[in-house]
C-alpha cells in the first residue's frame, strides 16, 4: 500500500505562486471576488505563506494540506466527512459535509476553507474530473486525488500496475524550479522518501504530533 507524500524544497521556492494558480485551475477553485476577499474568505488550497520576519527574508513557504497521518480534522468531524484513506490521503466528502467548520478550527495549519457562497467559476468549462463544491461545505487540497484515480483507471485498462510517477499533482507539474517532489513515502527508493530524510528536512508543527506527510527542505541563507 503506497503512502503518498510530498517534499517541498524551500531553497528552490521563489514564491512565484505558479503552484497556487495551477491548483486553482486544476481543482475548480473559484476567485471569491473583492467583497468576499476583503472578509478573508479567499480559498487557496495551495497557499504561499510569506516567511519574512521583518528582518531579512526567510523566503516563501507553499502550504498545501499536509495530509497528516494523525489529522486533527478527522477526529472532530461529527459526520466523518473528512477521513483518512488507507493510502494516507485525507479525504473531504462534500456530499457528507454539514458545514459545521469544526475541522477548520482543528486544523493547526489553516489548510481548510469554507464556501460561504456558491461562487462563480470564471472559466468556460470547469475541469470535468473535479466536482464543484456547493455553498456551505468545507474544501481543501486533495493531493489531486482525481489524478490518482485517472492514472489507476488507465493502468487497469492497459492491464498493468500503475507506476508511482504516473500520479503527479498539478502543483508539482507546474513548478518551474522543481521545488515540489511527490511520490510514495513507503518506497524507500523513491525520490520523495530519500528527500524526506535529507539533513535539511523538517516538518511544520512537529511538536503537535500530527505527523504531516509534507516535508520541507531548507538551509540557512546569507544576505549582504
Amino acid at each position, binding site marked *: 500500500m503506497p503512502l503518498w507524500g510530498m517534499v517541498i*524544497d524551500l*531553497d*528552490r*521556492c*521563489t*514564491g*512565484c*505562486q*505558479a503552484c*497556487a*494558480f*495551477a491548483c*486553482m*485551475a*486544476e481543482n475548480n477553485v*473559484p*476567485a*471569491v*471576488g*473583492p467583497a468576499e*476577499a*476583503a472578509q478573508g474568505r*479567499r480559498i*487557496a488550497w495551495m497557499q*504561499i*505563506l*510569506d516567511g*519574512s520576519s*521583518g*528582518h531579512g*527574508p526567510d*523566503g*516563501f513557504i507553499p502550504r498545501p494540506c499536509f495530509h497528516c497521518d494523525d489529522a486533527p480534522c478527522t477526529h472532530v468531524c461529527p459526520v466523518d466527512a473528512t477521513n483518512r484513506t488507507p493510502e494516507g490521503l485525507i479525504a473531504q466528502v462534500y456530499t457528507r459535509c454539514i458545514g459545521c467548520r469544526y475541522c477548520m478550527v482543528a486544523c493547526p495549519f489553516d489548510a481548510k476553507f469554507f464556501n460561504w457562497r456558491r461562487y462563480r467559476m*470564471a*472559466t*468556460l*468549462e*470547469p*475541469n*470535468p474530473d473535479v466536482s464543484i463544491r456547493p455553498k456551505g461545505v468545507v474544501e481543501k487540497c486533495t493531493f489531486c486525488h482525481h489524478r490518482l484515480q485517472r492514472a489507476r483507471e488507465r493502468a487497469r485498462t492497459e492491464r498493468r500496475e500503475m507506476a508511482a510517477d504516473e500520479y503527479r499533482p*498539478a502543483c508539482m*507539474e*507546474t*513548478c*518551474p*524550479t*522543481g*521545488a515540489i517532489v511527490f511520490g510514495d513515502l513507503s518506497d524507500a527508493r523513491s525520490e520523495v522518501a530519500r528527500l524526506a530524510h535529507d539533513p535539511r528536512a523538517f516538518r511544520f508543527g512537529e511538536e503537535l504530533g500530527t505527523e504531516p506527510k509534507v516535508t520541507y527542505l531548507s538551509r540557512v*541563507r*546569507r*544576505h*549582504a
Partner: protein
Amino acid sequence: MIFSRRNFLKAMGLTATTATVAGGTTADLGQASEDLARWATPEDRWVPSICQQCPAGCGLLVRGLDGVVAGLRGNPLHPVNRGALCAKAYGALQLVADPERFRGPLRRAGDRGSGRFEPIGWDEALDQLASRLGELRAEGLAHTAVVLGGQYRGLRDTLWQRFARSYGTPNYIRARCIAPERPALTHRLMQGVTSPLAYDLDRARYVLAFGVGLLESWISPVWAGRAFGGWRAGGDRLRGTLVVVDSRRSLTAAAADRWVPIRPGTDGVLALGIANVLLRERLYDAAFVDDSTAGFEDWVDPSGRRHRGLRTLVLQDYGPLAVSERTGVPVETIATLARELARTRPAVVVGERGPAFGPDDLETRMAIHALNALVGNLGMEGGVVMPGAVPLAALPPVVEDEVAKKSLAQPRIDGAGGGAHGLATDAAQALPARVASGQPYPVNALFLFATNPVVSLPAGGELAVALGKVPLVVSFSPFPDESSRFADLILPDHVFLERWQDDPVTHLAGFAAWSLGRPATRPRHDTRDTADVILHLAKRLGGSVGESLAWEKYDDVLYEAARGLHEAEQGYVVAPREEEWVRRVQGQQGYRTPDFESFDDFWDALGERGAWWDPARAAASRRTVLGTSTGKFHFFAATPDGTIVGPGPAPAAPPDADAAFPLVLSTYRLATRPLGGGRNQPWLMESPAAHVPTVAWRAWVEIHPEDARRSGVAAGDEVWVESAKGRMRVIAKVHDGTAPGVVHVPMAGVGGAQPNTIIADVVDPTRGLGLFNTTRVRIRRA
C-alpha cells in the same frame, strides 16, 4: 495515434455502414450516426498552444472538451518550459471566458470617448475601413496612418510590417518594454550585433543580476526558474550562486543567495566600482581585454580629441569608497562581489530591465555590460552567447509602388531613429505630444493592436485628449479597455487560445526554437484573428498591398514559413526525451535521418507536438558575438550623430531633496501581471503577490518603516500617493524590503490605481518609453 472521438466515430461509422447496408435503410444509417454523436463521450483532447501572457513563449497544452477550453498545462515537450508554467499562464482560462469581451465588430454610435457603440457586420466594417485607407493613399497621405503595436512577435509582426511598408507608412510603432527579437541597444553598440544575445543562465555558476526580476518578470520567468532549480540541484556540479542588486527585495532577491540593497539609479556606479576592484586586484581577463576590446586604454579620436579609456575612468572616478558613498553598498561587499565574479567560472552579469529607467539608462546598462567583457565571458559557455537562428522560409518580397516609396520617405511621427531619439527604434511615449501638436504632420488614422496606450503610457492621459484630433481610430482589442473606448471602429481579435499562433524563441539560451499553436477552441464570439483581418483588408485595398499580402488566411502564412524548418537540415520537431537523446547521439556522429516523408507530415507533427527546435547551441565562440567593424568589444561607442557614449553614469548627485515630494517612486512588474494587465482574470487579481498576502483586488505601495513613520502611515492604511502630475489611492505595505526614501508600486495597477497616472510624462531618449523610476512623490493617509 491519439484516440479521439473523431477517430472513434470514423471507425464506428465504417462498421455502421457495413451493418446497415446489409439490412436497413439510409434513414437508419443517419439515425445511427446521430445516436453515436450524442452518446459517445465528449471529445477530450489536448491541443498545443503558446502562452501569450508574457513574451517568454512557453508551450501550452490546452484541454478541449468538444472544442471548449476546460484546462491547461505546460507542454512537457516544449524546450522553453518542459511542462512547467508560471502563475500567469492559468489566467488564460479566464481570459477566454471574460464576460465583457466584445461579441463582434462595433462602430461608434455616440461622441468620441462616450463608450457607445453599435454592432456592424465584418464585411461592412472592412469595406468602410478599406475605402478610407484607399482615399488616404490616393491623397498621398499614406504616411499619416499610424499602427501602434504592443508586445508580440513572430509572423504577426511580419504581417504588420508588410502591411505598413506596402501601404506606405513608416509609422509602425511598437510600445513595449522588452523587444525580445531585437538585440539590446547596449549589445548593439558595444558588440555590433544585429540579433539578440542570450545569457546562458542554466550553464552559468555565478549570476550577478542588476535590478532584473529574473525569476518573476524578466523575459522568461519559467526558463530562468528552471535554471535556478539547476543551480540549487547540487550533485557533482558546483552549486550556482545568484546575487541580486536591487533597491527592492523582489521575489528574485529574496530567493537569491545574496541580496545587495542599493540606492535606486546607482547601479551603474556600483558596476564600475566592481570594475575598479577587478582592475586594481588584476582579477580581470587580461588576455581578452588586450586582444579583443577597444576603449580600455585612453585613445585619440580622428578629430584629435583625447578620450579617457575605461581603465583611467574607472581608476580615477570609481574608487570603492566613493562608490560606496554613492550607492550605499558597503566597500567590503563591493570587493566580495568583484572577487566572486572573477573567480567563479562561468559567471555572467545581467542588467537589462529595471536597473536604470533613469535619464542615464544607456550609460548604466553599458557600465553593467562592461563587466561581462572584463571577466571575459563573451561567447563563452555560461556567459553571453549568440543563439542560433530560426531558419524560416523567406516570404516573397514586399512590393512597394511609387505612392508607398514616396510616403515611406517621410519622417517617423514619433521621431524614432532621428534627432533626440536617434538610438531608439520606437518612441511610443513621444507619440501623444506629436499627435496633439500635429507635428511633423497630423495623424489621419490610428490602429491600436495589442496595446492599451491610454493607460500603458505615462503620457496616456495626453493621448486620450489628442485622440480627439484623429479622424479614424481603429482598435483590435478583444475586450473593452480605456483605449478602445476612444475608437471609431472596433474589430475584436480572438484571444490567443482561439487562434493560430507562432513564436520564435531566440533569446533564451543559445538554442533556436519555433513554436506553433493551433486554435485550442472554436472562437467564442464573432471575432476575427487580426492577422486574418490584415489579409482581408489588403485584399480589399488591392494593388501592391494586396500583392504583398496575398494569402487567404494566417495559417497559410505559417505553413509557408514553416517549410523552411523542414528543409533546413537541422533541428527537429520536439519529441519525448528518449527520442531526442537518440537524435543527439546521431548528431554527434555526424548524420541525421529525416523524420518525415513530406512537409505535410512535418507540419502535422508540428501541430500535434507544438514546436520545432535545434538544441545544438551555436558553437560558443567569440567571433559570433563580436560583430563590430573591428571585431572587438567596444567599451565606448559613437552614436549616429557622433556623440561618444560609454559606461559612466551621469555623475549627478542623488536626486535633489525635494521638500514637497520627498520620496522617489520606483516601479516593478509583478510575477502575476500578464500583458494587458489581467483585469479580466479574477484569479490573478485576487492573489497578486505572495509578499502582500492580505491584499486582494487592490494596488499597494511598499514603503520603508522610517518613511511610513515620517508620513504618519501605518501598515494596511489607505493612502494617497501623490506626484506633481496626479495621485492614486492604494494600500500601504510597510516593510524593510525597500530602501528608505524610495517607494515601490507594481506596474499595471488594479482598482483604478494606475501608476501611469502619477508618473511624469518624460521620454527616455534611447528607449522611447517613459522614465518609470524617476518621479518624486509624497504619501499621505487617505
